[in-house]
Structure formats: structure tokens, C-alpha cells
């Protein structure tokens, strides 16, 4: 029973990383209809930016971490303005944008490899050390920070979405683009803000993952694959669903190996995705996958 609880906690923490990455991806997908697979590359580039500031330039950790947010925003806005908007105006189908997103992702990964080298990087030990034990369950301070960060991020975004004009506009575009345009929503401007906010949401996860496990040029794509599964499990367009989807996949991959070898972990993650696609394609709270504009 103690092991089960420990596995559950570990799974929630893993799931919180997936959720944080999934949130930005889902917000962009729901509002703009873009399968922004370059979101993983924005995540990776931000992690390397953190490495550059903190390890190579030896800036204070907090300063470096805070600067990662505008960096991620600049990446996301740059991709939207420089690539997506241009080809969208030329009438490109959403599937073309998806292929372009994968190309951007590969391009950014390769550039990072050329600039920083393709070997793994890490921020070193001792940023936040130690752990607490509650009963028989241990949790490191770093893991606790991850979990709390995810909860704060989601709460903050729900507030933003419900209480601000931009949040309302994003929700309106997500529900019905044509109707939103009729009532005067500036679609292109909201798209731009969506990419800025969605990319900013990748920054905390990038800093936390970089600090906890380090980084390689391909880490963003690895995380994004499971984050996309979390989006589908949680429900396309649903913010609470994204959190639940990420936590569910994280917990399932850990709890699933309670009595079987841990070698099954990856199979369990994508097995959960398959089950949802077949038996509950709307995920926990979302729209049906077949209605997505792909």
C-alpha cells in the first residue's frame, strides 16, 4: 500500500510536467486550430536558454528563470508572425501548418545542437536539494515545486480565461471563430496573443525539467508526445481536462507498474491514449477528436 501511494505521488509529479507542456499546446490548438508541434521545440529552446544564462553566463537562478518567460514568448510570437501567419494568409490547410510545425521543430533542435552541442546538458546539483517524508512517502522539494507550479499555473490560467477580455476572446474563438469575427474579435491579434501566452506557459516547465533532469535537443519532442496524449485524454480545448489528462497519464504510467515490471511504462502511457481514442474520444471534458480541424 505504501508503494502504491509512493507510485501515485511520483506519477502525479510526472503528470504535472506533462500537464504544464500540454496546457500551452492545448490553448494554441483550441484557439487557433494549429497543431503547434513546434511547442516542444519552444520548450527545448527555453531550457537551453536557461542553461546559457545560469551555467554559461552564471546569472542568478531566479533572474535566469524569469527571463525564460519573455524568451519563450518571443519564440512563440516569432513562429506565429514569421511562419504560420504568412502561410495561413496564403490559404494553407491546417494539415500544412502541422507539417510546417514539425519542420520548425526539427530546425530549432538542429540549431540548438549546432550552438550548444548535442550532448546532454544539466544545471548541476544543489539548486534545491533535500526531501520531506510524510509517513512513509517521500517527496523532494524539487518535486513539490513542480506540483505546486502546475497547480498555480492552471489556476492562474483559468482565472485569466474567465476574468479577462483577452481570455474571453480566446474562448470565443475556440467555440466559434466565425461568430467571434462577427461580434468584432480581432482574430489575428488574438492569435498572436494566444501564441505569446501558450509559449509563456512552456517556460516554467522548461526551467523545472532543465533543473531536475537536464536536457538534450530532443527532450521537448519526447515530452510533447505524452503532452499531446494528455490533451486528448483530458479533452481538446479543456483547461481542467488538460490538467486532469496529464496527471491521469502520469499516475497511470506509475500505478500501472505496481505489480508488473517498470519496462511497461511507455506502453501503458500510449495504451491509455488508445483506450480513450476508441472508447471515449471526447476525453474527460473536451470536444470530439473528429471535429478538430486537421
Amino acid at each position, binding site marked *: 500500500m505504501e*508503494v502504491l501511494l509512493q507510485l501515485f505521488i511520483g506519477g502525479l509529479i510526472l503528470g504535472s510536467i506533462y500537464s504544464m507542456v500540454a496546457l500551452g499546446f492545448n490553448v494554441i490548438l483550441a484557439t487557433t486550430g494549429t497543431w503547434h508541434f513546434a511547442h516542444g521545440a519552444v520548450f527545448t529552446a527555453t531550457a537551453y536558454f536557461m542553461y546559457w544564462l545560469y551555467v554559461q553566463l552564471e546569472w542568478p537562478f531566479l533572474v535566469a528563470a524569469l527571463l525564460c518567460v519573455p524568451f519563450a514568448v518571443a519564440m512563440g510570437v516569432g513562429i506565429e508572425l514569421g511562419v504560420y501567419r504568412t502561410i495561413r494568409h496564403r490559404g494553407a490547410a491546417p494539415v500544412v501548418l502541422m507539417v510546417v510545425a514539425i519542420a520548425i521543430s526539427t530546425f530549432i533542435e538542429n540549431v540548438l545542437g549546432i550552438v550548444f552541442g*548535442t*550532448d546532454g546538458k*544539466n544545471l*548541476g*546539483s544543489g539548486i534545491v536539494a533535500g526531501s520531506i517524508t510524510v509517513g512513509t512517502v517521500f517527496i*523532494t522539494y524539487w518535486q513539490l515545486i513542480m506540483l505546486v507550479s502546475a497547480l498555480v499555473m492552471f489556476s492562474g490560467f483559468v482565472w485569466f480565461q474567465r476574468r479577462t477580455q483577452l481570455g474571453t476572446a480566446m474562448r470565443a474563438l475556440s467555440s466559434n471563430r466565425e461568430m467571434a469575427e462577427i461580434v468584432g474579435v480581432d482574430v489575428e491579434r488574438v492569435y498572436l496573443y494566444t501564441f505569446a501566452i501558450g509559449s509563456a506557459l512552456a517556460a516554467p516547465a522548461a526551467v523545472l*525539467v532543465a533543473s531536475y533532469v537536464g536536457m538534450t535537443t530532443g527532450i521537448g519532442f519526447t515530452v510533447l508526445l505524452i503532452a499531446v496524449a494528455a490533451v486528448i485524454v483530458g479533452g481538446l480545448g479543456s483547461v481542467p481536462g488538460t490538467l486532469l489528462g496529464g496527471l491521469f497519464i502520469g499516475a497511470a504510467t506509475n500505478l500501472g507498474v505496481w505489480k508488473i515490471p*517498470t519496462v511497461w511504462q511507455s506502453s501503458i502511457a500510449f495504451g491509455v491514449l488508445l483506450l480513450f481514442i476508441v472508447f471515449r474520444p471526447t476525453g474527460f471534458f473536451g470536444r470530439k477528436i473528429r471535429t478538430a480541424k486537421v
Partner: protein
Amino acid sequence: MRALQSLIRRSPGFYASLAALAMLAAAASAAPAEGGTAATGQPDTYTFGLALPQTGNDAPYGKDQTTWTGYAIEEINKAGGVGGKKLAMIVEDSQSDPKRGIAAFRKLTSIDKVPLVITAWSSVVVAIAPIAEREKVVELSVGATSPKIRTAGKFTVSSYPLGDVDMPFLARFALEELKLKKVAVIYINNDTGTPSRVFINAFKKDGGAIAADEAHEPGALDYSAQVAKIKATNPDGILIYSLTNESPRIAKQFCDAGLNKIPFLSYQAISNPELIKQAGIECSNNVYYTVKSPPLTGAKVREVEQRFRKEAGRDVNGLDGAAQLYDAVYFIKAIIEYTQKNNLPYTGESLKKAYESIKTFDRPLTGTIVLDHDNMAVAPITVYKTTNGKFEPFKTYKQAGP
């Protein structure tokens, strides 16, 4: 296409040029890697290939190993070469990935026409072996540990003892020296992780118990499930059998979970500065790992280490691996000298005949190895311990064998 047709129509010399190009290509494909092949089948320069990770997660080790290979070549050439002829190598990037490794091997054998290629990393060595066998090119494995390599093919020779050589000694060490009764195992789920099976069998055979046996995927983000399951079994020690870039992270996560007082057992992959950097000094103080040679403390080792430190401005990533690659060049020198002495051409088949005949190789840094019936090296095993951030020899087993 139309432009090409037009070119053919308009250029009277086109066919002549095409014929000339074809002749040139034929000549190039028949030529050896460097220099010309003399009538005796011996080239002016002995060129071999090297396929190690130059990019990717394992590049810090692959690149340092390549540098040390270069040192040995330089040293041999400075001393007159091999029978008066120079040694040279062509480097390709394997990225420690089987697919990339195969591509690198194919390039080295089909374009550069080398009769011998140095490789490492178990999954790469195992993937290349059938191609080496088919093309009759020697695959010299220097750093891979999977026992699968033993039966991979007769053109695959390992100057580096496999995991079935050192793991029984590590099991004995755990029982006799560390008095461990119950050990948990975490291993990487690919060919690299297979020697952990040897440890488990040996440890159980010698009277120990395996508390847990858990795998992780290559490039895993988190090991919390493995850590939780292993911690629950309350082991006396933990065997970490993973890659150079993942082993320090795994050790760190165990220490974070409070398992920082029990010994970690491993093999040479864990002996790199990243262990200290990532896991910290306190966590790494209980790490014991095997190195497949006598203690690397000789004057020659220090000399090469110093040269590297002076040029690179840092310590080498994985001294054992780099020293093995340095010595691999002396292994190659010995088998080339055999072909010279026996008037054999510089081909894969001749080099294979050479190592099958010589069997015992004296090497400057890592000492003597003997090839067993599968052409896999047998050597003394040294268990190292990390103490205050330093990797130091702890105990050497002189009699080793599979």
C-alpha cells in the same frame, strides 16, 4: 530531363566525358582508403575506421575516446609507424545509435574501403556485427559490454571484456567485501543493460538475493516508479546498469529519495565527472564500479592524461574508456604486424586470422588481454570506489574469465 536530353544532343563530347567519369569512378572504388595497394596487398598507409558518438548524448565520451585514439596513432607514427608505414583513421559519427552506427559502418567500408572499424556501445556493436560478417570487415569493439556480442559473429572481436567477465566479480565483491545480502537492480532496457542479468545470476548463485529488478527506457525523464518500487524492498545495495549520461541521474534520484547510505554498484559507465556534478559528492561516495583492467595508475596513463588535460583544459570523460581506445590502436598495430610478417594482404580476413592467431596482446595503458574462444577479451578486473569526488582503485581481481 529536357535539359539533359538537350545537353546530350548538343555536346559531341558528352559520351566521352561520361566514359571518362565512369572510368574514374571505377578506379576510385577499387582504390584503398589512403595510398595505393602494393602488389603484396599491403598499402602505403594503414587506414582503419572509427565509428563512435561524435554528437548526441554520449558525444562527450565518444569525442574524448576519439582524441585518445588519435594520440596513440600519432605516437606510433612518430616512432616509425607499423613496419615503416603510417597508421591513419577515418572518423564517423555513430551517435551511439544502432541505425546511425550501421550508416557510419557502411560509409567506412563501402566508400573508404577500410578493412577494420572500431566501434563501441552494445546496441551499435550488435547491430553492425551481421554486416561486418557479410562484408568480411573486422569490427573491433572497444567499450561495449553486452554478452550478446560473444555470438554476434566471427568478424567481431572485442578488446574490451564483456559484461559476463566483470559482473560475476562485482557480485562476489558485493557479497564478500560489502557483505550485501539483498541487492536491487535497475537497468536500461536495451542491449547495454544485458550484463545486469549476469550479475543477477552470479549474485544468486553465490547466495545473495535480488530484492527488485526494474528496467527504464533509454532517455527516461524520470525514474520515480523504479525508485519507489526499489525503495520499498529495502535493499542493502543497488546495481545501476545504464548509460554514461543516465547513470548519474539515476543515482541522484535514489539519493533524493533517501537511499544515500547504501552502496551503489555499477560498471565503468558511471565513472565520469557528471556523477559528482549531478549527484553531488555525498551521494557519489558510496559508488563502487568495475573497470576491466589493472588500476589505471601507471606513469604512461598519467602522461597521456596530462597531455589531454593540457590540451582540453579539463579531465577526460571516462578515463577507462579513453584508455581502452588508446590501447585499441596498439591492438591494431599488433595484428597488422602479423599480416606483414606472414605476407598477408591488408584485408578483413587477414586481420581476423591475425587476432585469432595472436590471442595475447600487451597494451601500454590497460595491460594485457587474452582473447577467449569467441575472440572476446579477458582481463583483470578492478573495483573502483568514489571517495570525496575522486575515482580510486579499491580491489583488483587478477584471475578473470567468463
